[in-house]
């Protein structure tokens, strides 16, 4: 049986962590190696430079004063405090003239210059022996046959290099472990956010349409992705809601007129039919069907509006539109024995759809004309509202809408039961509210300034100017 790779090892978290630590290890390894070699190189180069200087000075002594001057010079250096060099000078017969050591280390006298490495055992005061690894250079003296050794104790350098090596051996595994952990932490963070997305998607699929991806406000890629996904979910929820509402509304608002229609036809069928009665029944039927179609259209329109599928927003002058509608409605008010007044601030613009706003405002005016008793007053005002809004207000002296019912009348696909006896689909205010919402505003219903028994209605269509 083939062993399954543990799930953990296949996760992006693990792969990312591995990648992070590999990258970190490679980087720090390269750094340590560079550090090691550059240190070693520097120490060697420094020693070489100083030895070159020694030979130069001793060479000067030899060339100016011969063997005697040289041996004197070597002696001086040997007794000088703080010198880090060791010396040994022998004559052509190989006898020691002066020096730290007992004899010359093994070397090849055929060569003019030779680098040698050798160990020197030194007895410490406590009786132990310490081995000093030495590095030196032996130069044959020209015209004489003697030889001069200058050497230095490499113990210090070796110690430095050794310490660096030890540091590297200790640091590397620790660094590797740390980088792996760091990688895990970093990628776990990313993985957790991805998991959050997955969980949200699962929850939404499971029917929790209100679930949203948590957004931290850090503005990183995950936040931006989350915001997009949330916006998408908002839109989807709206669409689903709208579809659901449309279905309900069709059931709700169309069933009763269709039932009435059916009853009427049943009755007509059961009664003896004359040409006149048939004409009357069919005429009524056509009217009823028209009403059903009107309601149906209104429902579809609202649904499309709610789903944001209707309307084209351009910069438009609402003052101008209101002036036109005032002019359009004024004669109708006159005819219905109503006083029409308007006060319209000039050139207020919004980003909106002219037809939709026109429809919304004429719905308000139409309502006012329908519900205001003879002798009443309708007043249209257009003015700046708070926070960069424009308020289109229609005030009438009709019965008004009781505070408790206001929320209900603007709800889509619902209306006051008393309104069912009035002509129209009853979706008028809901449409106004929808249009307002689409334009970043709202429909505000309030009492007018009339007496308590008939306060009138003050309906404000508030639109955002941008």
């Amino acid at each position, binding site marked *: 049986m083939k062993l399954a790779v543990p799930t953990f090892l296949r996760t992006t978290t693990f792969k990312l962590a591995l990648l992070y630590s590999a990258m970190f290890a490679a980087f720090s390894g390269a750094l340590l190696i560079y550090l090691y070699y550059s240190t070693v190189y520097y120490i060697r180069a420094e020693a070489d430079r100083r030895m070159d200087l020694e030979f130069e000075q001793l060479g000067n002594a030899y060339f100016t004063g011969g063997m005697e001057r040289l041996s004197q010079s070597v002696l001086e250096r040997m007794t000088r405090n703080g010198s880090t060099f060791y010396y040994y000078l022998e004559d052509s017969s190989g006898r020691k003239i002066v020096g730290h050591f007992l004899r010359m280390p093994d070397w090849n006298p055929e060569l003019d210059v030779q680098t040698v490495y050798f160990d020197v055992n030194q007895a410490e005061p406590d009786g132990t022996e310490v081995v000093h690894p030495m590095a030196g250079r032996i130069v044959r003296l020209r015209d004489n046959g003697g030889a001069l050794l200058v050497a230095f104790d490499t113990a210090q350098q070796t110690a430095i290099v050794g310490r660096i090596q030890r540091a590297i051996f200790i640091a590397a595994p620790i660094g590797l472990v740390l980088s792996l952990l760091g990688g895990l932490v970093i990628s776990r963070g990313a993985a957790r956010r991805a998991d959050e997305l997955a969980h949200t998607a699962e929850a939404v699929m499971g029917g929790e349409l209100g679930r949203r991806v948590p957004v931290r406000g850090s503005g990183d890629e995950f936040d931006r992705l989350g915001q997009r996904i949330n916006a998408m979910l908002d839109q989807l929820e709206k669409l689903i809601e709208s579809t659901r509402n449309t279905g309900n509304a069709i059931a709700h608002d169309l069933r009763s007129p269709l039932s009435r229609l059916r009853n009427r036809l049943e009755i007509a069928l059961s009664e003896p039919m004359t040409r006149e009665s048939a004409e009357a029944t069919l005429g009524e039927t056509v009217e009823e069907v028209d009403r059903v179609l009107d309601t149906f259209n209104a429902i579809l329109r609202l649904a499309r509006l709610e789903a944001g599928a209707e309307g084209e927003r351009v910069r438009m002058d609402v003052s101008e539109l209101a002036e036109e509608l005032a002019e359009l409605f004024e004669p*109708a008010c006159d005819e219905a024995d109503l006083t029409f007044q308007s006060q319209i601030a000039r050139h207020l613009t919004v980003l909106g759809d002219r037809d939709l706003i026109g429809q919304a405002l004429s719905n308000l005016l139409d309502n006012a004309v329908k519900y205001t008793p003879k002798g009443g007053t309708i007043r249209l005002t257009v003015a700046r509202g708070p926070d960069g809004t424009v308020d289109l207000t229609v005030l009438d002296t009709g019965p008004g809408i009781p505070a408790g019912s206001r929320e209900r009348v603007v709800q889509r696909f619902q209306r006051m039961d008393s309104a069912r006896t009035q002509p129209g689909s009853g979706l008028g205010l809901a449409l106004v509210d929808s249009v307002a919402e689409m334009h970043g505003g709202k429909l505000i219903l309030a009492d007018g300034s009339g007496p308590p028994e008939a306060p009138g209605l003050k309906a404000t269509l508030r639109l955002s100017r941008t």
Partner: protein
Amino acid sequence: MIAMTAEENAMRVLVIEDDAEMARFIEKVLVEAGHSVDTAADGERGLEKARLEDFDAMVVDRMLPEKDGLTLVREFRDAGGTTPALFLSALGDVQNKVQGLKAGAEDYLAKPFAPAELAARVEALGRRQPAQEAPVTVLKAGDLEMNLLTRKVTRAGQKIDLQPREFRLLEYLMRHAGQVVTRTMLLEKVWDYNFDPQTNVIDVHVSRLRAKIDKEFEEPLLHTVRGAGYRLQG
């Protein structure tokens, strides 16, 4: 030239509609209005007929088999066809209307529609062609005269004062003198509204206009056509 008898108003109309019942209904409405009708049940055949024969107007359904209405009208226009077209569609959005007009149709009517609305609009289509050839400066209907340049309106030589909107309303009625003009047509063409203000606002405006042009005269010119709209007597 403006005065026309019913005989002269008769047009040959091509109806392109795939729903047989709807096609029969349209045909009946148009025949009753005094026109002769030819029908086509799909886009391909409709386009062929429109190209081969000389019609005064065509009524085109938006959604058709073989070739949809938009494409049909666009291709017909691209090929140089000038017969005015009216779109008939269940897609009644403003955007859909705009699409239809952009494709080259002269008018757009959403289903369902009142028979009178269709008859009136088809009739209005027929008048478009001559108007484009020679721009008129004076409109006449009976003894009513409108000068489009001086914006002066007289009836039997008597000056009539009109508000700007009334002037435009009368101008539209005079351009379609002898034809039935519906309330929706007035809203669309005179007020440029694609929405329904519901209250009988148009009726009130028309009756005000009527008071100005008919009141002092024996013979009324502006008639209400029951269940349809208005007609200015030619």
